[in-house]
Structure formats: structure tokens, C-alpha cells
């Protein structure tokens, strides 16, 4: 790992009143990788995304992106620098068509309208939204909206893409269709090789896609490693299933 990390968190914390949502979290995302952030509901994963992308300002700690300290910098500036996030609860520009939605992302680096619309079409093909290009975003299915969320972020040509549960709410077939799309984003050299950090509950996808996994529970980082390592970790099992379950599970298999 001689390469400089693309994103580094140094002791990032934030509290909402008495709730310590994120406590002293540090990790580094290496360029060109696909990694995942997992953890039980309410662990602070989405809050951590908001802290990275500038929607929230950490109470303490630093966020370094591409060698620059961006702690608390506004989201639109982070997007310009190459870090774009998606939302768990999809946020389409409902009144506009799919093409227009994606073009807003493309406009980040493309002032001309025609070129942005053309770029939107290319991105739509990449994520499998091409047949819906002229539909209003409000008419899309959940799966379609998830793809739109991904496409709009991808159209900004990010270096780092923060995907917040792009698979949540999809049926098994839709998940199976989406996994190769996510994989292609990282592999696709034509787009400069996007680094992806995803929040995901669908373990099938995490096991399938991620090279590196961080586990967050109650605002703290409790484990990291390959998917196989973290799923074997006692603390991770107990965070998901409750105290003492790790030993019981081992007893059951022994």
C-alpha cells in the first residue's frame, strides 16, 4: 500500500444531543478499490457518509480526501473535487425526466447542455436505464430509482463514489442484476477507475463485491478486514445477533 489513500478519516466523531452517533472512527480507503461499510441498523453508517461528504460537520476529527483536508467542507465543493454520494432514501428530481436528472450530474464538469444530455444517455446505458430515459423520474419503480440515484452520481465522473444502500428494497433478481453494474463501475477503466465505498445490508453483495469491509456498531468501528474475516469475527456476530451468541454459535457447530 505505497499508494496514498484516497479518503482518510482520522478520529471522526459527532453527537446529536446525548446520542454519540459516530465515535472516533478512523480508516482509509485505497484508490481503485471497492469496499463496504456494514453494521446493524442505527450504527451510524449514513451519518458517517454525511460527515465524509460535508452534509454534516464532525465535532472532532479530520476528513482527508485526495490529500486535502476537507473536514466540514460543503458537499458541492466535495462533489467538484471528486467525491459524490448517493442517498439511501432515493432523492430524484421528480418533476424531471430520467435524462434530465442524470444530466444535472453530468453538468458538474460539462457546461454545454447538449453534451451533458449525451453524457446522461451514456451513463444510463451503463446502469441499464436506457429504456427509461424519457420517463419522468417520479414514474420509476424502486429499482429504477436506485439505478437513477447511481447514474446521477456516476455522471459527475467521481473519483470516489459513496453508495448508500443501493440494493435496499430490491428483490433478489434485481439485486443480481445490480451487482454487476456496481462491479463494472470500479472495473471500468474508461471512466478513470472509480473507487467505491458502499453501505450495504445485503451480505450477498458485500461478500461478492467488497475487497475490504469496515464494521460499525453503535457509532464505533469494531472490526475491519476481508468479508470472510469480519463475518467470522465474534464482535461482529454479537453486534448483529446479541451478546453471547458468538459462543453459542460456535458451540452449535462444534
Amino acid at each position, binding site marked *: 500500500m505505497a499508494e496514498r489513500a484516497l479518503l482518510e478519516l482520522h478520529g471522526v466523531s459527532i453527537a446529536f444531543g446525548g446520542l454519540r452517533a459516530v465515535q472516533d472512527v478512523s480508516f482509509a480507503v485505497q484508490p481503485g478499490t471497492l469496499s463496504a461499510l456494514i453494521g446493524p441498523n442505527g450504527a451510524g453508517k449514513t451519518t458517517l457518509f454525511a460527515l465524509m*461528504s460535508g*452534509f454534516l460537520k464532525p465535532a472532532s476529527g479530520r476528513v482527508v480526501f485526495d490529500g486535502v483536508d476537507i473536514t466540514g467542507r*460543503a*458537499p*458541492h465543493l466535495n*462533489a*467538484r473535487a471528486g467525491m*459524490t*454520494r*448517493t*442517498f439511501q432514501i432515493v*432523492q*430524484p*428530481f*421528480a*418533476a*424531471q425526466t430520467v435524462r*434530465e436528472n442524470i*444530466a*444535472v*450530474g453530468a*453538468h*458538474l464538469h*460539462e*457546461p*454545454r*447542455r447538449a453534451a*451533458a444530455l449525451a453524457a446522461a444517455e451514456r451513463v444510463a446505458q451503463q446502469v441499464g436505464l436506457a429504456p427509461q430515459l424519457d420517463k419522468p423520474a417520479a414514474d420509476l419503480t424502486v429499482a429504477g430509482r436506485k439505478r437513477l440515484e447511481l447514474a*446521477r*452520481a456516476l*455522471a*459527475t465522473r467521481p473519483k470516489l463514489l459513496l453508495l448508500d444502500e443501493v440494493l435496499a428494497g430490491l428483490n433478489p433478481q434485481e439485486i443480481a442484476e445490480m451487482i454487476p453494474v456496481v462491479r463494472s463501475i470500479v472495473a471500468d477503466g474508461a471512466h478513470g477507475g472509480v473507487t467505491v465505498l458502499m453501505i450495504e445490508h445485503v451480505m450477498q453483495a458485500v461478500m461478492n463485491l467488497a475487497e475490504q469491509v469496515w464494521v460499525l456498531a453503535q457509532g464505533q468501528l469494531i472490526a475491519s478486514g476481508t468479508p470472510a474475516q469480519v463475518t467470522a469475527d465474534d464482535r461482529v456476530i454479537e453486534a448483529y445477533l446479541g451478546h453471547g451468541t458468538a459462543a453459542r454459535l460456535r458451540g452449535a457447530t462444534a
Partner: protein
Amino acid sequence: MGRDLATIAAFAAAVGALTWALDSGVWLTFVMLALYATLLAQAWNILGGYGGQFSFGHALFFGCGAYVQAIAQLQGGLNAWVALGLAVAVAGAVGSFVGALSFRYGLKGSYFALVTLAFAEVFRILAVSASFTGGGVGLMLPLQESVANLQFGSRKGYIGVVLGFVVAALLVTAWLRHSRFGAQLQAVRDNEDAARAVGVDPYRTKLGAITLSAAFMGAAGAFYLQVFQYIDPGIAFGPHVSVEALVGAIVGGMGTLWGPVLGALVLHLLADLTRNLFGQLPGLNMVIYGAVLVLIVMFLPRGLSGMGRSVRELWRRGRG
């Protein structure tokens, strides 16, 4: 873009031809006032329709335009056309100022509406108290008919001026529909967080929109002064102009190119009609005007220009 430009050119040509052909002073006045109402609605539409920021105090910018137009001529000795340029610029600057204050602090929705309302009211009170505005008496522009003074013997001259502004506002709106700035503005309107996530600066985007919108309101204010040659704080900063601007845009269809034109025309027709039919019963015309507004807002949420879609939806819901 091409189609929008073509329809705007056709609109300008049609209004021009109609004006040229008309002889009756009553109808020329009607055309002039309808275009003036269109200008108000179209100006509001830039910020309210495309930017989603509902101002209840657009009279603020209108009043600034009207007063600058008057003061620049009366006290500054400036030529009326130069004053017009100044009026538009000052109104735009006041728009930037109000926008900078309210958008910097993230005021949205009803809070933004209340702040604009309050600003208009503050300016109305200031205009009453200051001496250079003529106080509560207002300012009167002496009658000196000549093109150089922006005063015309015939309504046709005024129609030419206001049509120019309406076409300019339509061109700006068409640009919003086919440009990066417009795409970003509509993105901020539809979902500010999503827009920020893909690199749109909501503050600067809204600031640009309010500046443009205010500049056109300033033009309308200056035009008002040139036509009626009189302005007082109530006319300039009172709620009447604010309401006329936003109702025209909402009734016609917010965030569309032709909605505000249609809305302003229909409302103007309606107001004239009710006044002529029920004028002898004071207030009845306003009752009917209000009732029609309520009906439009209830049954045509997309305004008159979105009537087809709204009716289809009502029909489907009725059967389903």
C-alpha cells in the same frame, strides 16, 4: 431551444401585428396592461416557478424600479432611458441583497415568503418616511411626451417597450430550460440535498435566479411609472403587485414558458370582465375573481397550461 425561440418569435410577431392593426384605445390599453401583467408573472416565475422560491414580496423589486426611475429623472436629471437601465440594475442589486441574506441562512418555503413580505413592507414604510421619495404623497413625473423621455402619445409606443421586456423575460426563461444554470436551478427546486450531492451550489444558483427575477420586476416598476407618471409607497411596495405577479404565474402554470403569459392574460380578462359586468355592485367583481382563483387552484394544480394533464388525472381518479 429552437422550438422555444420560434414560438417566442411568433408570439412577438402576433402581438406586434395585433397592436399595429388595433385602433381602439380601449383595446390598446388592454393589450398594454395584459403585457405588463405578463411581465410581472414571468418575472416571478423565474424565481418561483423555476427556482421553487415563493416570494410574497416581489413588489419590493417593482417598487425599487419605479422609485429609481422617478428619482433618477426628477432629482438626478437623467434621461428616462438611462434611468430605465439604472432602475433595472438597482432592482437586480436589491434582489441579490435580499437573496444573499435569506439564502445564506438557508431560509426556505414559508420562511422565505415571510422575509420577502417583510422586506417589501419595510421599504414601504421607509418610502413613506423619507423625503427624497416624496413621502406618503409620492412622486409625480411631469408630462413631456417624446420618445427621448420614454413617454408616448399613443399606447402603441408603450406596448413596444413592454413587449420588448416580455420577450426578454421569455428568452431568459427559454435559456433556463436549456442551459446548465437552468438545470441546476430546477434541481435545487426539486431536491436541494440531491443537487448539493452532485455538485450544485444552491446558494449561488438561487442568488442568480432572484437577481434575474428582481431585475425584470424593476423593469416592470419603471414601466409602470412611465405609463401612469405617478408612484406612491402603497402602489410601489404594497401587496397588490406581489399578489398579481405570483397569482398570474401560479394560475397559468409555474415552471413553464407560456403558463405565466396565459395566466396573466386570463386573469386580466377576468378582472376586466367582472368589473364591467358587476362594477355597479362594488366588491362583487373581486368575489368572482377570488372564486375563480380558488377553483383553478383546487382543480388545476398545474395551472391553466397543465389543464390537459390535470383533467386526465381527475378523470382517471374518478373512474378508478
